[in-house]
């Protein structure tokens, strides 16, 4: 087995046994990245010199018997929406092409503190707006399972890099499915934590009431290891919740006996992809065989989630992205006629088409005369969607659904039709609106050999139950061990 194919826990074991050093491991990743990433294009930038120093530091720490964690010396990579001190952070946008953050995001600081190695920054849809990574200002990323297909989005680089063994694990961010949907498309594990579980400080804001940072990993154990490292209150993010964080690794129990699982009927609709439907139902039947109780449940407002989401997220985005005005950072247009003209031209030159479209939509729904009809209405429907989940969790431990209505689609297939693109997040969006946690794990393959994701949804701050379900499923199946055929 190649070093680049190891999980975090396997690599940690190898480092402890001195089978290899962190520097050897890190160098193995750069060798592989240099041979394969011209085809996958997962990375926007590599930080080789710094990473090798971090790896040497980790090796020294280990050699002198210093305190080590499971992440000490482990090569990770970050979605380019997370601020990394003095390392370029672009959000895949031309407007931030040369931005050097003066500080680390809290999650980055925590991982650094545990001795992790950062290989580089990963591609994404510009400002995390998209479901295919085709909206990046710096080129598309390809799905390692089929280079003609999208890796999902917006954390497409994060999922593709893990699937193609270009890093052991990565972090993404999830506003409407941007960790779970690419994880499903690339056959890896992706978790969106409860809103408030993980600090958003240093996460470039898209839609602040929906954004959460989450891990993308090769297996559920690695997911728990990263959650243990990044979770918890942060005084720099007043929406991060100050309650105890459990030890997620001890939630990994291979047993689902007696767990009550709801299957929301609205997630299995006429005309859905046959392979997805089959794979998800097979997974549900296995969970039942292993002792879980399965019942159909109704989340009646599901069909309104996409409309609600695209009102709320564009409204928040139009406000959050007002800061890109060519004054404090980023691009500034030349040859302008006064301040207002400078703002408008700077933004016209710096933003890509999808970002402009969402700013326009968000500005419209917040504008005088339309606020009540759209924005307030959407906030009210958000309440109804949240109440659907609250009711379901009175009777059930978790809900099981597909992550995405189809496997990865073709590059270019939905670029010209924004509404069709928006509908590809139909099963992940409600989870963000309700602020609850959801995990996507591999549960099979389509007839075209494309990965299919199973979504497990939990109630607020109950990541432990969904991790336990995911872990049990993973331990008793082998989908997560399959890998794409590369070079």
């Amino acid at each position: 087995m190649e070093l680049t194919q190891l999980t975090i826990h396997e690599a940690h074991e190898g480092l402890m046994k001195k089978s290899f050093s962190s520097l050897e491991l890190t160098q193995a990743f750069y060798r592989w990245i240099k041979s394969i990433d011209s085809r996958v294009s997962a990375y926007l930038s590599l930080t080789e010199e710094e990473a090798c120093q971090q790896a040497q530091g980790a090796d020294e720490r280990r050699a002198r018997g210093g305190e080590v964690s499971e992440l000490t010396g482990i090569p990770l990579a970050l979605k380019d929406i997370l601020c990394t001190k003095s390392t370029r952070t672009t959000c895949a946008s031309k407007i931030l092409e040369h931005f050097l953050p003066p500080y680390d995001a809290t999650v980055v600081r925590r991982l650094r503190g545990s001795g992790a190695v950062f290989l580089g920054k990963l591609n994404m849809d510009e400002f995390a707006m998209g479901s295919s990574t085709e909206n990046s200002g710096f080129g598309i990323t390809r799905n390692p399972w089929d280079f003609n297909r999208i890796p999902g989005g917006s954390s497409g680089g994060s999922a593709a890099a893990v699937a193609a063994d270009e890093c052991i694990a990565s972090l993404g961010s999830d506003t409407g499915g941007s960790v779970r949907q690419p994880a499903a498309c690339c056959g890896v594990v992706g978790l969106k934590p409860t809103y408030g579980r993980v600090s958003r400080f240093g996460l470039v804001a898209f839609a602040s009431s929906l954004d959460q940072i989450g891990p993308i990993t090769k297996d559920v154990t690695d997911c728990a290891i990263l959650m243990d490292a990044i979770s918890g209150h942060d005084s720099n993010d007043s929406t991060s919740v100050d309650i105890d964080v459990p030890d997620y690794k001890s939630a990994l129990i291979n047993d689902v006996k007696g767990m009550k699982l709801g299957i929301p009927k609205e997630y299995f609709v006429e005309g859905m992809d046959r392979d997805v439907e089959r794979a998800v139902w097979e997974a549900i039947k296995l969970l039942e065989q292993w002792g879980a109780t399965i019942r159909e449940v109704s989340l009646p407002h599901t069909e309104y989630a996409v409309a609600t989401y695209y009102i709320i997220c564009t409204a928040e985005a139009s406000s959050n992205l007002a800061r890109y005005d060519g004054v404090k950072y980023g691009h500034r247009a030349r040859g302008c006629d006064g301040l207002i003209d400078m703002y408008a031209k700077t933004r016209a030159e710096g933003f890509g088409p999808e970002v402009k479209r969402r700013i326009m939509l968000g500005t419209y729904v917040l504008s005088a005369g339309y606020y009540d009809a759209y924005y307030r209405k959407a906030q009210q429907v958000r309440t109804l969607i949240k109440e659907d989940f609250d009711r379901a969790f009175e009777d059930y431990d978790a809900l099981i659904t597909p992550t995405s209505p189809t496997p990865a689609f073709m590059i270019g297939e939905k670029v010209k039709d924004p509404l069709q693109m928006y509908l590809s997040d139909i099963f992940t969006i409600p989870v963000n609106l309700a602020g609850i946690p959801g995990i996507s794990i591999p549960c099979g393959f389509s007839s075209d050999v494309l990965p299919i994701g199973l979504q497990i949804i939990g109630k607020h701050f109950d990541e432990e139950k969904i991790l336990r379900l995911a872990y049990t499923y993973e331990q008793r199946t082998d989908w997560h061990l399959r890998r794409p055929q590369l070079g």
Partner: protein
Amino acid sequence: MKIRVKDVEYVARLARLTLSDEEKDEFAVQLNDILTYMDKLNELDTKDVEPTSHAIPVKNVFRPDEVRESLPREPFLGNAPEAEKGSYKVPRIIE
């Protein structure tokens, strides 16, 4: 049509975005499609429903007003398109 080119121009002005004629035409069509889809929400009676702005109850968070070390100024100014004498530089605002 919910949105005509002149509405696109008005919203673009509010959003501080200069759009080409091509972009205006394209956005008029696309925003129209998307907003028509959003009308779906009017099927629901929400007369007595409280709006949700955050899924988790959030409240104002206070901290003691203590002097703390600030981040250094240079890396911030270093990111600015134009800076001078420790300040951001912008085009003249007052004629």
